[in-house]
């Protein structure tokens, strides 16, 4: 009986810990339009996805800081990132950035992902672009 009791208790604690960790580390995806509508959390990391706006990439001449805008064709959001960008990062390419909004509304990314295939668009980004185009009154 004692063993079973201890076992149940142990599993209960484990489940509680797991669910707590799970809840803390879930990351939601938002498009630039959703961020503009204020739906994205201000105090917690999330994923922002869209197309890198052509001509928006600016590099700091001193270090590896880079500034660019992502768009879903309805709204834009400025992103800053310091570090090495993935091989397939380029203007006009769909990307996903992980990070947080700063008080000025700039998205400070800790990681930028571009998938390892020329034709591949992350599915969330594809959906966001489609919604954004529809919103902007363009033909999807």
């Amino acid at each position, binding site marked *: 009986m004692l*063993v079973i009791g201890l*076992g149940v208790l142990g*599993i209960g604690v*484990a489940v509680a*810990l*797991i669910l707590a*960790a*799970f809840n*803390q*580390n*879930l*990351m*939601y*995806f938002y498009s630039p339009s959703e961020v503009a509508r204020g739906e994205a959390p201000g105090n917690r990391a999330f*994923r922002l996805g869209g197309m890198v706006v052509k001509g928006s990439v600016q*590099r700091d001449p*001193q*270090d*590896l800081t880079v500034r660019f805008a992502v768009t879903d064709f309805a709204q834009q959001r400025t992103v800053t990132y*310091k*570090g*090495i*960008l993935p*091989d*397939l*990062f380029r203007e006009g390419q769909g990307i996903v950035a*992980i990070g947080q909004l700063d008080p000025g509304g700039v998205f400070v990314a800790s990681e930028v992902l571009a*998938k*390892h*295939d*020329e034709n*591949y668009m992350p*599915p*969330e980004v594809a*959906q966001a672009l489609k919604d954004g185009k529809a919103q902007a009154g363009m033909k999807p």
Partner: protein
Amino acid sequence: MIAELGHFALAMALAIGVLLTLVPLIGAQRGNVLWMSLARPAARAQFLFVALAFAALAHAFINNDFSLAYVAQNSNSALPLAYRISALWGAHEGSLLLWVLLLSAWSCAVSFGSRGLPLAFSARVLAVMGAISVGFLLFMLATSNPFLRQLPPPSDGADLNPLLQDFGLVVHPPMLYTGYVGFSVAFAFAIAGLIGGHLDSAWARWARPWTLLAWTFLTLGIALGSWWAYYELGWGGWWFWDPVENASFMPWLLGTALIHSLAATEKRDVFKSWTVLLAIGAFGLSLLGTFLVRSGVLTSVHAFASDPARGVFILVFLVLVIGGALALYAWRGTSMQSGASYALTSRESFLLANSVLLTVSCATVLLGTLYPLVLDALGLGKISVGPPYFNAVFVPLMAPLVVLLGLGQHARWKQDRFAELCRGLRLPLLGTLVLLATAVATLSEARSPRAVFGLALAFWVLASSVGGVLRRCRARSAPWAAFMHLPAAYLGQHLAHIGFAVTIIGVTLVSLDTVDVHSRAAPGDSVTAGDYVFTFAAATPIEGPNYDGTAARFEVTRDGEHVTTLSAEKRNYHVRGMPMTEAGIAPGLRRDLYVSLGEPLDEKTWSVRVSVKPFVRWLWLGALLMAAGGAVAMCDPRFRRLATRLAARAATGGAVTG
């Protein structure tokens, strides 16, 4: 013409698979020896036909037959020969063919290695494996046929993804798949045991070597994948908790629980139901992993929409295999009675705890991997579960596992006195403290509390394993002779545990103490990482068979003394127009020096990543030792002796029915 032959061979293999499933199964139910004996030749014939199909597809790849749509999508005439062959399993259709080839190879191996088993039992095992092959062959022929023609053929192929043009990717998938598919043997043994109603320690003894072999391959496959990711993806990570990696890790976790549980079932006739469930689970997760990775479900749930037939087939197949197995378990499993009782302080208890912890770890990985997919499929939002979740739950689950491992190795079967167990642990405990003190005194990396904690766990396993072997040998009059005569299963167990300890050391130190610097650098500039200074010496253009690019030479110094020269490349593959990073790595047991090029910032300046990674090699070294342990244990003559004894009994007219 050869492609049509391959297509035909697949259809033949399917027909044989249907025979292999039905005839021996019915034969075993009715006690018809002739029908049962059909299983072995059928399994071998099926292997021949699948091998023929595989050879036909390989022929098409080698000879650049772009009239096959699959070849055209995944190869190119400029691709070197080795990669033209490995391109065969570079995408969905071909990797399914590889899967089926390996499955029929395992069946064929079982048909040769099962002569000592009762005829009805081996007939059922082969029939179950035949049924799985039918599912896969149907899936291939109906939705993913690699032999489809595309007329008129394109003038050249679309090339293999440059990421896959690498030695690691030539060997990683076959190794991993051999492991995945190998669990089908354990699964078939479990199902055959359930049908025949004899799940006892003899059953466990038959299943053990096969399960160990599959586990060995899976361990090697995962380690190869991690090593490949480390040097090929260009940022020096070795594990990302990526869904694709998790898909291979989950069967490994359950497979590890399975080999431990099987040991208890064999030695003490306990945990029978649990062992059967683990065998079903390990193979179920292997199936899930194969489909998740190769069907495109993971890149997007909506990939189903592009070919709904595939998605539906996969779901139906998974439900049939896993659901069918569980239903059979519910029906027949109740008759299983545990043969033996055991006390709280006993090796059985420790093995039970091991099983529970590994299963819970597997469940947490499953939750983190599937939850985002399910949520997305239901339209409830797009989320992702990153490495922080897995790290947060995995470490607290592994720590008790490791502590119990050290204890459990010293516990006796059935019953042990707690006080006696503690007495036996004095030596390992002392060993742990000595090792830990030495490490802290000599390694600058080992000073943080978390590093000390991780190393303490690793040394505990190490000392417990070495101590166990020493104690066993010292108890004999001639210790050295005793060591030479240790059972292979015992040696393998300790070798694998030592490997586990080595991996823990690597994981701990490389996770906590890696120095990683991103910087701008032009030729002549220096970047400092830890004690090392990396000087960008020169950049030169390079030209490969199907790419061009830039090679950067870095001179590495420490305290002004030259250590090594590294060359990092940035390549641009022509056909797909894809850039690739080839890192420059100086491997070492103590540390790896790592440099990779980011992107050109202006005429001369590049962004560069420079890292010093202490003890990263230990990760894979440990995995190699674990795999070696599995291979050694598998060779224990005990597993064969029993088979021979049974064969002798069968020959003298003993009962052969299962």
